C-alpha cells in the first residue's frame, strides 16, 4: 500500500478521547488478506473478513451510549414512556379540536403535563439499593433507597421549573429537595458535601472523640448550609457530651449542643409538610415571614449568650457558633461551607434570600455563585441548570440533546411548552431552515430514527412518527417497508401497525411481498394465504397456473389429503382466490365423483354432473383440465339406467371439445397425459349420450 494516502505520508495523530478497542472474534486463520467495513443497523459495524481460504462476516457494536444506564434499562424507559406520551398527544389533539386553536395552551393544560411528567419520572429511577437494616445504625448518616441517575435529576429539574405550577411558591425548597437527592451525582466531576459525608461516615468507626475532629464541624456546617437538617441533628447527637459517662462533667457543653440542635430542628420552612424532614412548615408566605423573623431573633439572642464564654471546650464553641453564623446568613460562612456553586446557590435561598418566589433574578444570583465557586469542568446537570435559569429554551434543548440524548429532548419538549405560550410558539413554529418542520417535530423524528434502528425498539417508533405532522407518515411508510417479511413475528407486527394507522395500501403491499416470499420458498399455503389477505387476484392467477401444473400430475385420490388443507384455506367463494377458485370446484367434483364410483344412485350421479357443468361453464377453469375432466366423467356419460346429461348440456361439452381441437393448433399447447384412446372414447360417449338424450326428450 502506498504510504502517502493521507497527506504526505505522515500519520494523523488521534486527538481527543482515547480510541475504544473492540476485539474481534472471527476465528479465521491469519493472514487476513481483505477487510471491508460498512455500517449495519444502528451503531453496528459490519465487517467482512477474507483470508486466503475462508471468509467471515462479523458485526461489531460500537458503544457510545450513556454508561450510567445500561441498554436493557434504556429500553425499559423507551417502552414505558410510550403510553404517557401517547396519552398526552391524544389529550392535546382533543383539546385543540375542542378549542379550535392549534395551540392547546390554556390555564389547566399544565396539570396534564404534570401527570405525564410524574409518570415518566417514575420510570427513570436507578436500581433499588438493598433496604436499610431495621435496627437503625446510629453511625449511618447518609442513606438512600435507590441509585440516583443524572437522567432523572435532569427530568426533575425541568419539571420543577417548567411544569409544576403548584410548587412555584416554594421553588427554593424544591431545589433543596432536588439537591438532597442528586448532590451525589456531582461527585463524579468535583467535590461535594455528599461525597465528603460518605467519606466521613466510612471513617466514623475509627474516630474516638468525634468533636475533636475538625472535619466533624466542617461537615456539620456544610450539611446545614444546604438544609439537610435531619443529618445535622443526627450528627450533633453523636457529640461526645451526650455519652452517659460524660454527661455530668460536660453539662453546659451538652446544653449548648442540644440548644443548637433544637433551634435547627425548629427552622421555619416555606413548603408543604413532608415526612422525614425537620423544621416547621408554613404554607402561607405571611406566616412564614413572621416566624422566620422570630426564629432569626432567637438565634441572634443565642449568639450573644454568656454561656459560650463559660464553656471550656473551645472546638465545640467555635463549631456551634459557626452553625449559628450559617443560619444567620453569613456570606463567608456559607461560601466556606459549600463545595460548588449549586450548593452555594441553594444556601443563599435558605439563609440569605428566604423570601424569594418564582424565577425572577435567580439567574443573576447563579452568576454570582458561579463566580464565587469557579469550576474547571462543568457537570452536565450544572450546564442544564444554567440554561434553565437564563430562561433560554434553546440552550436548555441544546444541553438536553448534547448531554442526555434524543430520548430526553423528545420527551422533555412537552414540559418546556407546558407553561409558556412563548416557548410553545418557538418550538412549534415551522422553520424554513429545518425543511419546513418545527423544532418539536425535528427532535421527535430524531428519536424515532434511533428507535427504528434497533430490532427491539422499531415497534414503538410509529407512536412518535405519527405525532409528526409533516414528515412522520412518510418516514413511517419507509420504516414499515424496511422490515423483513421472513419472520412471522415481525410481519404480523408490521401489519398490526398498518391497521392501527389505517395504512391499508402499505399493509396490502407488505402482504403481497410476504405472499411471494413464502411462495418462492415452497410454503405454498402460506403464500396463498398472504396473497388472499392482500386481495391480489392477479398474483393469485399467476401462481394458480404454476399450481395447476402440479395438480394435473398429482391430484389423484391418494394425494388428495395434501390438497385438502390448501383448498380449506381458500375458503368459500366469497373470498378472492383468483384462478385458484377452480381448485375448490374441482375438489367438489372429485368428491361427488368418488361417491358415485361404487354406487348406482342416479341422484348422486346427477349431482356429479351438476359439479361438472359448473366447472366446464366457469371461465376460470383452465383449458388443459377440460379433457381430463371429461375423461374422469366417462362413467357419467355412459350411465346405464338413463342419460343423465340433457341435450343442451351435452352440446356444451361437445362445443368445449371443438374448442380444444382448435386450441391444439396454437403454440404452447400441452398435451394432457391420458391414454391414447381417451379423446375418441369421450367423443363416442358424448355422441351416444346426445342420441339417448334426444330420444328421451
Amino acid at each position: 500500500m502506498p504510504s502517502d494516502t493521507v497527506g504526505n505520508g505522515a500519520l494523523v495523530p488521534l486527538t481527543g478521547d482515547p480510541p475504544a478497542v473492540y476485539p474481534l472474534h472471527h476465528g479465521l486463520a491469519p493472514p487476513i488478506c481483505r477487510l471491508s467495513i460498512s455500517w449495519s443497523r444502528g451503531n453496528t459495524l459490519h465487517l467482512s473478513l477474507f483470508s486466503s481460504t475462508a471468509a467471515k462476516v462479523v458485526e461489531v457494536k460500537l458503544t457510545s451510549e450513556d454508561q450510567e444506564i445500561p441498554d436493557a434499562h434504556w429500553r425499559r424507559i423507551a417502552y414505558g414512556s410510550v403510553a404517557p406520551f401517547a396519552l398526552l398527544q391524544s389529550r392535546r389533539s382533543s383539546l385543540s379540536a375542542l378549542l379550535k386553536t392549534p395551540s392547546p395552551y390554556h390555564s389547566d393544560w399544565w396539570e396534564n403535563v404534570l401527570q405525564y411528567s410524574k409518570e415518566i419520572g417514575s420510570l427513570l429511577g436507578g436500581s433499588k439499593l438493598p433496604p436499610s437494616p431495621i435496627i437503625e445504625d446510629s453511625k449511618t448518616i447518609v442513606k438512600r433507597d435507590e441509585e440516583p441517575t443524572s437522567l432523572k435529576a435532569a427530568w426533575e429539574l425541568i419539571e420543577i421549573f417548567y411544569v409544576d405550577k403548584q410548587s412555584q411558591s416554594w421553588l427554593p425548597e424544591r431545589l433543596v429537595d432536588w439537591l438532597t437527592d442528586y448532590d451525589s451525582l456531582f461527585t463524579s466531576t468535583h467535590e461535594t458535601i455528599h461525597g465528603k459525608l460518605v467519606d466521613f461516615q466510612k471513617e466514623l468507626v475509627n474516630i474516638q472523640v468525634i468533636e475533636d475532629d475538625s472535619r466533624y464541624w466542617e461537615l456539620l456546617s456544610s450539611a446545614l448550609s444546604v438544609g439537610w437538617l435531619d443529618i445535622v441533628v443526627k450528627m450533633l447527637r453523636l457529640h461526645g457530651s451526650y455519652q452517659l459517662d460524660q454527661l455530668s462533667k460536660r453539662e453546659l457543653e451538652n446544653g449548648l449542643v442540644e440548644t443548637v440542635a433544637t433551634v435547627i430542628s425548629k427552622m421555619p420552612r416555606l413548603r408543604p409538610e413532608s415526612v422525614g424532614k425537620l423544621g416547621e412548615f408554613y404554607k402561607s408566605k405571611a406566616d412564614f415571614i413572621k416566624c422566620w423573623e422570630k426564629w432569626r431573633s432567637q438565634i441572634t439572642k443565642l449568639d450573644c449568650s454568656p454561656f459560650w464564654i463559660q464553656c471550656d471546650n473551645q472546638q465545640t464553641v467555635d463549631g456551634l457558633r459557626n452553625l449559628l453564623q450559617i443560619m444567620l446568613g453569613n456570606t463567608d460562612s456559607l461560601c466556606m461551607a459549600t463545595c460548588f456553586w449549586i450548593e452555594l446557590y441553594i444556601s443563599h435561598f435558605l439563609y440569605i434570600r428566604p423570601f424569594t418566589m418564582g424565577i425572577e433574578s435567580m439567574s443573576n444570583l447563579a452568576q454570582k455563585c458561579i463566580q464565587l465557586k469557579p469550576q474547571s469542568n462543568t457537570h452536565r446537570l450544572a450546564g442544564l441548570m444554567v440554561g434553565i435559569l437564563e430562561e433560554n429554551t434553546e440552550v436548555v434543548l441544546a444541553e438536553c440533546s448534547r448531554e442526555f440524548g434524543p430520548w430526553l429532548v423528545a420527551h422533555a419538549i412537552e414540559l418546556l411548552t407546558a407553561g409558556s405560550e412563548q416557548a410553545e410558539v418557538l418550538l412549534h413554529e415551522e422553520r424554513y431552515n429545518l425543511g419546513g418542520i418545527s423544532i418539536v417535530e425535528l427532535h421527535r423524528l430524531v428519536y424515532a430514527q434511533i428507535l427504528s434502528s434497533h430490532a427491539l425498539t422499531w415497534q414503538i417508533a410509529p407512536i412518535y412518527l405519527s405525532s409528526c405532522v409533516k414528515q412522520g407518515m412518510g418516514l413511517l411508510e419507509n420504516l414499515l417497508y424496511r422490515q423483513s417479511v421472513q419472520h412471522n413475528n415481525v410481519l404480523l407486527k408490521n401489519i398490526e401497525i398498518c391497521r392501527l394507522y389505517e395504512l391499508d395500501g402499505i399493509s396490502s403491499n407488505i402482504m403481497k411481498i410476504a405472499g411471494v416470499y413464502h411462495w418462492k420458498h415452497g410454503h405454498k399455503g402460506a403464500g396463498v394465504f398472504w396473497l388472499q389477505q392482500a386481495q391480489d387476484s392477479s398474483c393469485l392467477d399467476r401462481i394458480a397456473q404454476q399450481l395447476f401444473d402440479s395438480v394435473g400430475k398429482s391430484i389423484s385420490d391418494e394425494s388428495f389429503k395434501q390438497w385438502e388443507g390448501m383448498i380449506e384455506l381458500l375458503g368459500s367463494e366469497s373470498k378472492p382466490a383468483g384462478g385458484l377458485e377452480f381448485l375448490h370446484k374441482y375438489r367438489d367434483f372429485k368428491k361427488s365423483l368418488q361417491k358415485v364410483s361404487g354406487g348406482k344412485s342416479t341422484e348422486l350421479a346427477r349431482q356429479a354432473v351438476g359439479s361438472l357443468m359448473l366447472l366446464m361453464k366457469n371461465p376460470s377453469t383452465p383449458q388443459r383440465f377440460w379433457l381430463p375432466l371429461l375423461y374422469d366423467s366417462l362413467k357419467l356419460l355412459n350411465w346405464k339406467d338413463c342419460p343423465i346429461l340433457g341435450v343442451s348440456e351435452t352440446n356444451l361439452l361437445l362445443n368445449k371439445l371443438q374448442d380444444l381441437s382448435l386450441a391444439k393448433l396454437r403454440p404452447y399447447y400441452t398435451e394432457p397425459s391420458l391414454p391414447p384412446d381417451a379423446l375418441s372414447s369421450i367423443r363416442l360417449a358424448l355422441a351416444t349420450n346426445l342420441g339417448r338424450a334426444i330420444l328421451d326428450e
Partner: protein
Amino acid sequence: MAATAIHKFPQYQYVDAVRWLPQLSPLDRFAVLALFDFDSDASSIQIHSLASNPFSLQPQFSWSSPSRISSLKTSLFLQKPLIVASTAAGSLHFLFADSSDASFDSEVSLPEGTLHSVPASSVDLMDGGVECVTVGEDGKVNLVGVGESNLSCRRLFDSGGLVSYTAARWASSVEFATGGYGFSLQWWDQRKPGGPVSNFKGNWDKKLSSGIVHSIDIHPSRKHTCLAGGSLGTVFAWDLRWQQQPIILSGAGAGTGAGNTMVHSVSESEVWEVQYDRCIKSNTSSTRILPSMICSEDGILAVIEQGEEPVELLAEACAINSFDIDRHNPSIKCACFFVVTLILGC
C-alpha cells in the same frame, strides 16, 4: 379471586419463553427461561430457582443454545424433568435435568435440517415425555420418540408446503392437534396415517379478517375440544362434535361470526399463547368452555371465560411473549420483553 401478589424480575436479556419445570419436591420451584441477547447474538436456556422471602429468581444453570429458541416445552420423563426446545436454525434439543437439584444432566439433539427445511414452528411434548411432535411452515409433521440415550424420529406427514403448520398440541398418547394459516386446525391420529383425521376451517371469512393460529391447548378432561389463539386477538374453541362452527371466545376480527353475538375482545393483537386456566376451579359438568388465559403482543395477560367479561391480570407497555401456569401451585409466570413477572395466588 384471592389477593394476588405480583413480582417482577428484570432480566438483562430478551426473554423469548418461560416454562415451569415440573415440580420435583414441594419445596423447590424452578423456572426455565429461553433467553436471547440481541447485542451478542447469544442465546441460552437457563434454569432459575424461585426463592421466597425475599422473593427472588436466581439463575442456577445455563445451557447455551446454538441459535435462538423458537419453541420451548417441559415435561417429566422417567421422573426426570425434560426440556425440549426448537431453535431458529431448525435444530431440536432435549435437555434432561437432574431430579434432585435441576442441574442439566445430559443433552440429546437433532441437528438442523433433519426434521424441517425451516425452523420448526412449534413443538409439543407428550405428558410423560415419551414422544414429541414438531410441525413447521414447510408443512412437515414429525414425531420424535424420546429414549434415555437416543432419539427416534419419523415423518408422519408432509404437505409439500401446501399447508403450513404453526402450532401443535398433544391431546392423548395417540392424538394431537395442529394449527396454521387461515385460523385452520387439524386433528391427527397416529393410528390413521396419511393425513389429518379432520380439518377445521370456520366460516368466518366473510370479512377479510383471517389470521394465524399461534397456540393450542387441550384440556385432559375434555379431549374433544381444541382451544386456539391467534391473530386479531382471536381465541376460539373447536368442538370435534360440532365440526364447522367455531365457538369464539374473544377477538376483534371474528367477532361478528354467526352465533357469537356476545363476544368480548380483550386484545386486538396477536395472541401468542393460550392455556386453560387450571387455577380456577370450574364446574366441569358445565357445557361451557372452561376458562382460559391468554397473553398478547399488545401486553395483555387476561383470563377469558365464555360469555363473561374478560379479567385483565396485567397490561404491559410491551409484548408478553409467553406465560405458563404452574399446575400444582396456583401461580403464573409470564415473560414480557426483558422482565419475568410472577403472579402468585391467583
